[in-house]
């Protein structure tokens, strides 16, 4: 396997982790927005804050990882994408800033107006940011980013049918994953009522995301026919089938309240979609540019893969420890945590 393919596989693993973990953090922010007034939404917000507080920064690093590997592994593609799509990417970056700092500020604020202001900023940017990131994915998938610097249309490259659908899909999958994860977190915290409300949201969002994905296929048929063909009849078909099957299974499991297993199937549905796109598009990264043509020199690729491999030896056990620490039940109940956080 050429080294650049290894790097692209690493990029895709990083992207998958970003969508599965950070995507769910964004979704949780969205639910924060819909949690209702300060009093009514307090328990929900408490659970959300409790669940994502310790992990969101680590989850966020996956994005940095993806960006850095892109500019190292396929520099021209990175330059083309970031220069043509500079509008949605600037907006996404600002969304990331607003969201992370507002979340941290809210955590240490005590007065109601401050918590409301920071909370609203956090929640609002949690919805917009994945949308803009999604439009970027749509722009690349529909071949609207030509090679060269700022060679594409600055507006229509990301404001087009495919981008709108992928933007919506990014928001929806985050919300769906968050609902699924939070159901189990609420159950573990012995809050059956919260678990029930997130289960209901999970079911509704699951259906909505399914519909958006189906619409997406129709749009792709018209807008990006070659990717559509790969997805529906080519190498990517098995992954699409996996995604649909896992998505349906999750709805059933959620219905039956099997809250642990549904985490796995829900994740599998998202993984199927992402890897379906990746496999369907590979090896064409941009119109007329294949992975090999865009690849960095072998010396760079080898050194980077080596560095990541050594890093993985440190990271895998550390990440494991992080998640295990906070998935084990805690002494503090989330509801009481939200009462105490102002101290």
């Amino acid at each position, binding site marked *: 396997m050429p080294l650049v393919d290894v790097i692209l596989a690493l990029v895709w693993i990083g992207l998958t982790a970003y969508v599965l973990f950070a995507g769910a953090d964004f979704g949780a922010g969205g639910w924060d927005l819909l949690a209702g007034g300060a009093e009514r939404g307090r328990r929900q917000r408490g659970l959300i804050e409790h669940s994502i507080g310790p992990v969101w920064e680590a989850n966020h690093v996956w994005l940095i*990882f993806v960006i850095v590997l892109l500019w190292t592994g396929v520099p021209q593609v990175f330059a083309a994408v970031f220069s043509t799509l500079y509008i949605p990417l*600037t907006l996404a970056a600002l969304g990331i800033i607003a969201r992370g700092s507002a979340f941290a500020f809210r955590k240490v604020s005590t007065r109601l107006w401050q918590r409301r202001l920071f909370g609203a900023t956090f929640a609002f940017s949690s919805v917009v940011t994945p949308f803009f990131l999604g439009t970027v994915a749509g722009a690349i998938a529909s071949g609207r980013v030509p090679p060269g610097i700022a060679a594409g249309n600055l507006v229509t490259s990301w404001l087009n049918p495919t981008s709108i659908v992928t933007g919506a899909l990014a928001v929806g999958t985050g919300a769906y994953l968050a609902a699924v994860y939070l159901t189990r977190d609420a159950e573990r915290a012995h809050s059956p009522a919260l678990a029930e409300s997130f289960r209901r949201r999970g079911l509704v969002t699951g259906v909505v995301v399914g519909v958006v994905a189906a619409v997406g296929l129709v749009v792709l048929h018209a807008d990006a026919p070659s990717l559509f063909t790969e997805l529906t009849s080519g190498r990517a078909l098995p992954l699409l089938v996996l995604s649909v099957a896992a998505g349906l299974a999750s709805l059933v499991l959620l219905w039956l309240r099997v809250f642990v297993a549904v985490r796995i199937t829900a994740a599998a549905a998202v993984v199927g979609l992402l890897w379906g796109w990746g496999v369907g598009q590979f090896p064409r990264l941009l119109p007329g540019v294949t992975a090999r043509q865009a690849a960095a020199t072998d*010396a760079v690729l080898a050194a980077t893969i080596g560095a990541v491999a050594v890093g993985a030896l440190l990271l895998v056990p550390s990440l494991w420890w992080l998640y295990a620490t906070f998935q084990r039940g805690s002494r503090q109940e989330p509801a009481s945590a939200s009462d105490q956080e102002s101290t």
Partner: protein
Amino acid sequence: MVLLTAPATYADLVAARTQMALSLGWHIILACLGVGMPAITLIAEWRGHRTGDPAYRMLARRWARAMGVLFAVGAVSGTILSFEMGLLWPGLMGVYGQVIGLPFAMEGVAFFIEAIFLGIYLYAWDRLSPVKHLLTGIPIIVAGVASAFFVVSANAWMQQPTGFDVAHGRVVAVDPWAAMFNLSTPPQTTHMILAAFMVAGFGIAGVHAVGMLRGRHDRYHRLGFLLPFTVAAVVTPAQLVVGDWAARFVADNQPIKLAAMEGLFRTGRGVPLSVGGFAVNGELRGAIEIPYGLSLLAHGRTNAEVIGLDQVPPSDWPPVNIVHPAFDLMVGMGMALLLLSAWLGWTWWRRRDLPRTRWFLRAASLGGVAAVVALEAGWTVTEVGRQPWIVYGVMRTADAVNPAPGLVWGFVLVFAVYVVLTVATVYVLRRLSRDSPAPTAPQEHDVAGYPVA
């Protein structure tokens, strides 16, 4: 693929440079606290564990709480930087992204370690045994220092580009290790890491000095001042030596930058050191001159030749009136902080106490600001002094910028967001330093009532 670009308008180029400088200048302050603060907090926690002293334990909790906010803001303000490398400088990244990719990839690993252990350190404080909790802080320190090293080594490459061959505008052979460990890396990274400890140490000490000026002379405030101040005071003399090393490096390898730093227009021997002054029409006016100073400092001999700006055409000159004052400012702040450190060292040696005059605390409360000023001035010297090159001698800044129109509007937006972010951060930190009171009762032997997370 054509990768050489030109800005849409001159205003767009200026906007891109200002945006980059703004977001870097902002991030670097948070990054310094991210590098320096965990070590200082951990020392307090360790002392608290060893002695059981509630003041130390309380300090560790309070600093950790602030660290939670600072890290979050640092992480997101760093993210926009990695976006901006592509958004603003695609011409640089499209060609040389792979050459500086390796340190950035390692930096990614360091960020992971930092974020993971910070999550554990802050949120699992009461779930781990005290020793285990202390140990979870160590990877944060190591990763913080490492990430400073990695990112500055990428910057050092832009000062001293090595480890690659170019043919027809494409990079054809790269030795990523040679690029990372270029000649500029050792002085620049050391200087930066020491700067981070100075900013964090003098900064935290300054906050507690203000508290003491307001009449709070309890043990909590005293220790909260002494501990970080000592860390910074130990680093300061070393920083001046390293700064001298950095200057010699610049003299040998970036002589035009040195000429701009010193406002030296004409090449000559036995050149004096100019402090202050303003460049007008190709000469420095109003400077105080120290005979033979520059020859001596740069090359160690009174009659050594020092290259002036006259060696290159004016189109290749960095803006002297930015670089020269910035350099003086950095050195001046470094000297002032050295004096401040020596003052405390003297009274401590004589009578194990702080200087009695309030002027000491007044000066110390500004120490953090002075360190930040030196930090920003230092980066201005490095980065503006490298102009008009983005990669010294290899690629011009104007050839690297994104040619898309409207960068000016992007800058306006980013600027507005940073204004709001600054106001909110300062506001939240000020409240944080006020709202939970120091323990007043001496019998208060535990601080578990002040959860961090």
